[in-house]
């Protein structure tokens, strides 16, 4: 857990401080034009790619994009999921039925497929567009979680007791239901982060996500060209970055989940 938090903190720091710590310009520069596909060396620790760009610098700047896109899209998904889930859970009846059928329908299509179809129809997207896309396809599971939780909480005796002191449904939601949702959302958000990072990397690798020259861990790998075995450094380092991030985030998510286990919910 400590290692995981440490890894994540380092990555976030790298992403934030990218311009300060990257040894080279992550984009093509004229004077580096002759340094194509160089293996790792003292001046290029992670080597260079087919456009003579320093892979280390690209991985560092890629952290910005990859982590930023993941965080923003998860935040969007969380907001949407919480809003839809809470509305369905609180309103019940036909509102609930409609919301949940939409969720069922969207969940019945694999997310990757849904993303591919959407990208194919919209064409290549800006970074903001990718955030939107990942967010819009990631909220369904969360809305189900939130809805279940809300419905459970609404029937709890302390909610009845609050109503008996004159609280409106809105008062009850703000005072008793929303705070109780925080652990659930935290866990769901962290685990979603772990799944959305490779998803964005995959899309970018296929050329459907973040477009070169903006670096993302996915499209750095695709810059290895047609014979990635010859330029292993271009594939290995961004790949390692993805694996480390996902492992770290997943570990944190699992730990949070254990802590927020509903059976232990009585202890704040």
């Amino acid at each position, binding site marked *: 857990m400590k290692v995981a938090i440490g890894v994540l903190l380092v990555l976030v720091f790298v992403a934030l401080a990218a311009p300060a710590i990257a040894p080279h310009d992550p984009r093509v520069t004229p004077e580096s034009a002759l340094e194509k596909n160089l293996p790792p060396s003292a001046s290029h620790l992670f080597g260079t790619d087919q456009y003579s760009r320093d892979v280390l610098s690209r991985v560092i700047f890629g952290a910005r994009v990859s982590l930023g896109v993941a965080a923003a899209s998860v935040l969007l998904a969380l907001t949407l999921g919480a809003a839809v889930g809470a509305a369905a859970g609180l309103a019940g009846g036909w509102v609930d039925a409609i919301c949940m059928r939409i969720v069922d329908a969207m969940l019945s299509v694999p997310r990757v497929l849904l993303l591919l179809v959407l990208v194919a129809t919209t064409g290549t997207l800006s970074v903001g567009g990718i955030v939107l896309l990942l967010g819009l396809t990631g909220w369904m599971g969360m809305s189900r979680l939130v809805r279940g939780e809300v419905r459970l909480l609404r029937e709890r005796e302390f909610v*009845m007791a609050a109503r008996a002191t*004159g609280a409106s449904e809105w008062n009850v939601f703000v005072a008793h239901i929303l705070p109780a949702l925080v652990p659930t959302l935290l866990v769901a958000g962290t685990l979603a982060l772990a799944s959305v990072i490779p998803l964005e990397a995959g899309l970018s690798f296929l050329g459907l996500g973040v477009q070169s020259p903006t670096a993302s861990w996915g499209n750095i790998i695709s810059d290895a060209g047609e014979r990635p075995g010859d330029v292993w450094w271009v594939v290995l380092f961004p790949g390692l970055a993805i694996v480390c991030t996902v492992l770290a985030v997943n570990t944190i998510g699992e730990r949070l989940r254990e802590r927020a286990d509903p059976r232990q919910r009585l202890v704040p």
Partner: protein
Amino acid sequence: MTMIGADPMLLDVRDLSVSYAGEHGAVRAVDGVSFSVHAGETVALVGESGCGKTSVAFALMRVMSPGASIGAASRVIFEGADLLALDERAMRDIRGRRLAMIFQEPASALNPVMKVGAQVAEVALLHGERSKKAAWDRAVGMLDRTGIANADERAHLYPHELSGGMRQRVLIAMALMMQPALVIADEPTSALDVTVQAQILDLLRDLQKETGMAVLLITHDFGVVAELCSRALVMRGGKIVEDAPVDEIFHAPKNAYTAGLLSAVPRLSADQ
């Protein structure tokens, strides 16, 4: 709030019915119950488990579980207004302020992740108190009045850090925060130890003397009835089978069911 002159009548329930939607049609849990409570009076609603006591309480508060419905002919006149005819906003204003409820299970009727002081203060905030600080101070004062020592420190505790009796005092503080005219106490001592039960009953009696509130005490325990109440309503199968002063019920029960209930109470001596 309209009061009818000097009429001491506080609550007048007419023909109250409550049914629950079940798999095989509606089930009538409360079937045409009528009774009244005068200002300052303590009335017991007695009966075995499942006879509809708690359903009556929830219907009076209009805090219904899903699937429950109140009969169309039912009337609940409280301080001159028919509660069943009020809109939700007007009802919310009465709940907690004029008409309050003490719940049965102090362990589950408090939010486990909220400081008890905040839960008591919330009642004041819901009924017009604007300053959080003032609400908190009032909550601490109320907790103190319910006999919680060091209330200013204990208000910062969470429910699981308090004993059962202490939690029940918190619930009582919540109910009495706005000085209601009528408190419905649903088995307020059932979940507590015998010694703590006596303390809570004493507390209720003292607070009643102080504030002049009326209490509708729901219980299955005739010991509690004898301790606290002047009049008892005996309920069975959703109907009230006897409505009489407590003395009369104990010494000359008119209804065979009441007599049966009484004989089920263990006695220390046979000649009572």
